[in-house]
């Protein structure tokens, strides 16, 4: 299953160096251009926000990054390795994890089991042993469980460990989803509107978890978010898309002052 050997990648990317670069990417669905000639980079250890009005191509961009869509033009360079086509599970095994705009958890499974799913790619014991939960499989399961328990502690969701996620309020489900992504120990974490539909308190909690994730695990984070207050507070750099094109890129302060961005968000007389 492991299509790529880990050693093909540069292992030693220092914080601040480019982790992932998007070069002149164009994505078309038939005649519709979802993304047109967009280039930007994500540096190791930063929080990178992708913003833009509805339909600007933000989620498409994430889908390109984690290999769900294949752009017709342009290149993606991850850890110094350029790729043309990649399947999502390959992206996952290379350390790219994501959460979804709509919660995509297994509703009937408990919080614990949902997060354990995030460890699947790290499991090494053959399937056969897992059938019997015995021997090496058991030992491995205990190891992974320990890691998952650390995430549960980190996200403060001990009290819902054994609760089926379908019964949880939305804010907690989002937190569980983040937990599952973290269970993969990702190098790059893609968050698609992690705070959509949350109340103020839940948003504040989520912000804290995102910042703590960065601090504690050194994870690089790319996020799409509509709440401008959150984006400006959280992110180190922001890229702004409109109609599939990049209209601005820079620190939150620079982006805030950019006339094109103001026009895109507030509307302008054409």
């Amino acid at each position: 299953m492991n299509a790529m050997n880990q050693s093909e990648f540069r292992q030693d990317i220092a914080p601040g160096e480019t982790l992932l670069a998007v070069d002149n990417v164009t994505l078309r669905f038939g005649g519709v251009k979802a993304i047109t000639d967009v280039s930007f980079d994500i540096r190791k250890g930063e929080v990178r926000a992708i913003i833009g009005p509805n339909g600007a191509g933000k989620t498409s961009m994430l889908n390109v990054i984690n290999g769900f869509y294949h752009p017709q033009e342009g290149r993606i360079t991850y850890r110094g390795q350029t790729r043309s086509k990649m399947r999502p599970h390959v992206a996952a095994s290379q350390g790219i994890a994501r959460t979804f705009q709509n919660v995509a958890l297994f509703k009937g499974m408990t919080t614990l089991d949902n997060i354990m799913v995030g460890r699947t790619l790290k499991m090494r014991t053959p399937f056969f042993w897992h059938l019997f939960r015995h021997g090496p499989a058991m030992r491995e399961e205990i190891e992974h469980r320990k890691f998952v328990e650390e995430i549960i502690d980190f996200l403060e969701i001990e009290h819902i460990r054994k609760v089926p996620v379908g019964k949880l309020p939305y804010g907690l489900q989002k937190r569980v989803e983040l937990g599952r992504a973290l269970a993969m120990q990702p190098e790059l974490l893609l968050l698609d509107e992690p705070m959509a539909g949350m109340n103020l308190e839940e948003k504040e909690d989520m912000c804290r978890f995102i910042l703590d994730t960065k601090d504690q695990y050194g994870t690089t984070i790319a996020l799409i978010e509509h709440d401008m207050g959150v984006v400006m507070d959280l992110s180190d750099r922001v890229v702004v898309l409109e109609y599939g094109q990049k209209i601005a890129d820079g620190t939150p302060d620079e982006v805030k002052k950019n006339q094109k961005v103001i026009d895109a968000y507030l509307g302008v007389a054409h």
Partner: protein
Amino acid sequence: MTADATAELDTFPKLLLRNEAVRPHRPAMRHKDLGIWREWSWGDVARQVRCYALGLMAHGLQRGDKVAIIGTNRPRLYWSIMAAQSVGAIPVPVYSDAVADEMAYVLDHAEVRFACVQDQEQVDKILGVADRLPKIEIVFYDEPRGLRDYDHSRLQAIDAVIAQGEGLLLGDPAAVKRLDDAIASGKGSDTSVILYTSGTTGRSKGVMLSAGGCVKAATDTVEFDRLTDRDNVIAYLPLAWVGDHYLNYAQALVAGFTINCPESPETAVEDRREIGTTFAFAPPRVYESMLTRIMIRMEDAGWLKRKMFHYYLGVAKKWGEKILDGKPVPLAARLNYALGEVLVYGPLKNVLGMTTIRIAYTAGEAIGPELFSFYRSIGLNLKQLYGQTEAFLYVTVQSDGGVRADCVGPATPNVEIRIDENGEVLYKSPGQFIGYFKEPEKTAETITEDGYVRTGDAGFFEKDGQLRIIDRAKDVGKLRSGALFAPKYLENKLKFFPNIREVVAFGQGEEFVTCFINIDLTAVGNWAERNNVSYGSYQELAGHPQVYDIIAGHVAEVNRQLSEEPMMAHAQIRRFLVLHKELDADDGELTRTQKVRRSFIADRYGPLVTALYDGSTEADISTEVTFEDGRKGVISARVRVADAQVVPVSVPASQPARAA
């Protein structure tokens, strides 16, 4: 370090050494961490505390220093209390949910030199007010998360201190000798702990408790409830509250039982179930919310289960308490109850984590008789106690079999109680406090010349020797006839009805008692839905004639109960009205802790109070209200005043009886 068995065990560090010697392998503490229960035996705890104390001494901790303890219940914070006490320093537990400003007041007032805290949240709070706390030298923390990049010049991990002490234990006999001497020279008269009151009335006060007094008080109740080192408690009450320091910390050291620290405050119920605690305490509202949860879930159960549940609750209601109290019960009823135990009560107690509970207490506020009976009828040995920080908790306690919902029991062993001429309860107890820290004038106000402590509560003794608390002493008044009028007592009686949310009783210096009533929108709304009563607003529902009838029924029932109590028979409610709006803290009508501000309400609704007394049948009122978004508006209404059914009493109004 050896424990001299013959020496008097008058401090907690000496008790810790005793437990290390007597039961080194019995579990002393457990903590659920990363989903697994970790366990420390008394031997482990004693060693950890010894290392910790040595480490603290190396940082300069001395006899008499104050050490703040801030956080939820976890082993390292309990060890912090023990380590500080070993050195002869005085722990000052602080409410962990206190905002920075309140915390600053306590830390400053207590002259705290060191603080042992749980996590980044508490560290941030202290650092945030550090400029107001020049005396604080070092903050020790338990959980390192998020603190890595902090300036560690005044910050230390508790684990690092313990490790440092471990080195000293092995390599520095002189330091070990100093610690041994510090423990041995601890006396029963030393201040063992300073507990700050929660401060519902003004600034909180630091209650100083002596080591010997604490140990004596805890020894009495451990014997009373026959607690042993096989017992288990779950520690989820705030560390700063006397309840935790007494029921968990002090009793554990005296009896040698196990303190179990939950994973987080939210998991306490689930964790209790896993551990199977044998001794439990919870305020009435916890029992109430548990019951509500069960009832709601039962409504969703299948009809067979629901039928079975309600049938056996009926059986329990009839026989359960009698069986629990060891009274004669017919064999058939016993057998039926036993079947109920298998089918309903047992599984129910299992879900609630109460299967193994031998003794459960509740205190703090009045508990509804229905609620109280429910738990007792399914076989939980629930009892009441009455106490306060100044007494080191227990003043009265109910014995097994001597339980009633409306009283708090006879005096605890070795406690003397006296009722003042104005009805106030005074006591003298082994654990009673030395005084308020740095506030001798307040101490003098509270302790009488002959050494009794004023509780501030009014009460009297029932014929069976149980104390009944009726109200705060300063709220208890008299009607014009001289009959006793205890507003809160009446209000609580009415509030036990689910349809009634809030009550304000009037009567001080008046001819008779009247009250304002707030209906409970959820309960009454539910009733309206089931009975096809349509309403457009709270105001409309509150004024509905049928609602008035329901409430009148409740008032009549309360009057009937009152008429059976000689002390209260003359304080029956003659007239009442249902308020057109909910009393709200935003309008200043309630305190933030949801207590009614009686005089403010009397003022604001002046015309209604007048109408209650001048015999009119309705009154107009318009009041300003604050909406949730902060806007102001005016609500006007015409409120109906109703007469209540009163039970005539022949006994003349009398002064409160004096009991000894």
